């Protein structure tokens, strides 16, 4: 069964974003936005 989003370690998700960004020649700003968003989301989860 697939893991729920919050059960996947943040590093795993960020590595996926990094690889997608490299593959699709994405912009640095877009990566920064996605990376920052995910970090905040996890901080919110962990602080509870």
């Amino acid at each position: 069964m697939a893991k729920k989003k919050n059960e996947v370690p943040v590093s795993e998700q960020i590595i996926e974003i990094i690889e997608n960004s490299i593959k699709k020649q994405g912009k640095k700003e877009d990566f920064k936005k996605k990376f920052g968003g995910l970090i905040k989301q996890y901080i919110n989860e962990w602080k509870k």
Partner: protein
Amino acid sequence: MKAELILENIGQYRGLKKYAINSGVITIFQGKNSLGKTTIIKAVGTALSSPIVSKNLMLEANKFGILPRDKKKRAPLVNYDENMAKIILIYDGENIEIIINKDGTIKTNFNGNEMFLYSGMLTKNSKILENLASGDYEFQWIVTEMSNASKYEDLKSIVDSYIELNNVVKATLEDINKKIGKNLSENEDLIEKKKNLEEDLLKVQEDMNNIDLPGREVYENLKSQENEKKAEIKGAENQLKKINDDIVKFDKDIKVMDDEISAKDDEINDIKNKMKENKEEIDRLKDLNENEINKEIHDYQKKLDPININLGKVLWGLSVWSNLKKNKQESNICPICESNIVITLKKIEQKINNLRKEEESYENKIYDINVEIKVLENKLKDKKEKIPLLKSQIDSHDKNIRDHAMEKDNLQEEKTRMVQKGKGQLLENKKDIEALIENMNSELEKVVGEKEDYEKRYEVLVPFVEKEKELTEEIAKIEGKIEKNNEEIETYKEITLFEEKIPIEKAEEVINKLSDEFDIIIDHIINKINEQRLGAAKKFNTTIKNVMKEIDLPNIENIFLETDNYNLKIIGKGGKPLPEGSLGGAEKATIGGILQVSCKQTYLRDFPFFIGDDLILDFDPENAEKFINYLKKLAKEEDLFVLITKPTSDKEIVQVELQ
């Protein structure tokens, strides 16, 4: 393949210059110095590499004379008397059109590859040649820039900035925890001290109670009234403090509303300005006289007729003379007018050259006239299509103004309501509480006065009362210190990490978790960077080996990048490494040429261009010939456009093909 290069207002040339270029051969632009041969090479490089976005490549473009050094300087490729220049490069289904403004801004319809500046341009300013010339054999930049390693490095710099911030917050948290610890331990000591003082106070009060005094009940009653009044005053003062805080907060809210109202005013003014511009544009378009414009277009079209006739004659002449050239046919009769003249192959060549110049001149005139016609047609088109569009924009602006005005009115009303009700009520409450405190203070003064009268009568009590007062004051002081410490601890109840507020007791756990996750991410990126660099170096080394097989250098057996540090290694015949100092300028230039062409063939093989500026001047003659032969072979096998410049004594640029 065939390519067409059209340059407008580039370098020292105003107006148009056109060049037809073939692939599969080396095209040489030759002529004496300062004719603009290098400008042609730079223009092709600009067309193929733009848009240039990375900072490193902007520096390269500046070195090549493509982009200005800074925003204040003029774009070096734009003719000094013009505001903009244009480059058109058409080849193999691509139709690149690039406009360079004098401020260095570039507009292109092509998604060029900026890495072409590192790989496809062989000039003395090429980074590879500069490296070699300065004795710098560190080539990690090639395997980084020409692979995805540089992109991983870009992403790593973002992750690094987060790690740095996480570490700063971690250090801040450690400071906070130290301060909290200090306050808590200080409070423990203060509480102990307070406990001892309270015991002493209790004892003094017990001793006082044991003394037999006349009217003691009244005195005790006054004392308890004094304590009650003091407690009541403290309560009222707390209420007053809360009201004052509410007033400050209220004023802040009003300030925010004022800012919002003022922002609405700005937005309305902006839209009004846009409306004004639209109306002025409509007036300008309405003033355009269609008949006059149509007449001007007609006049220009009439001017085209004789030019087209003359161009037709020139083209016919060209085909006749070109046939003679093709058949190497000398004769005694002019093929055009059939008069008796001696026609040699040299004369045929001269005639063709003259006719080509005439053709170019007519085509330039036709182009200029067509540009004028296009400008006039655009004016007519604007008049027809732009007015309804501008009118609809005005309607939309009008609606926006009304919407913003309504929002502004709502804010204004809300503010008025808040000021009238909210602040009015707060000020009233404040006044009531202040009056109450004043009243209670005067009552307290009265009670204390009466109590002190009793105390003066009870002389025996004086030392006890003084001791009681002293102990009470000391206890109050300690309570104040404890409260201050607790207030300070209270201010540390949250810490901000990446704009998120985290309860202080959870902060360490969150920061450490993040730190662990960042370590995993950084490990991944570093592995990828190493993997990319290694792959890029292996490919580069294979290409260099293949090129070296074609260009057999007399003293050098092998050239490659070491795969542990990406330094350039040059192995001499017999297998011994050649140290940097043992190579002469000509050898370095040849090695540079080999590395440059290998770099292009490794990383930008799909790009069918390789360009060079006076590239073989610094080679020794034997190596120069080998290099040119290799380029000829490469151009043919890969169907490449190879463009190079060559200094000669020709007074105009002459285009020559090497098969």
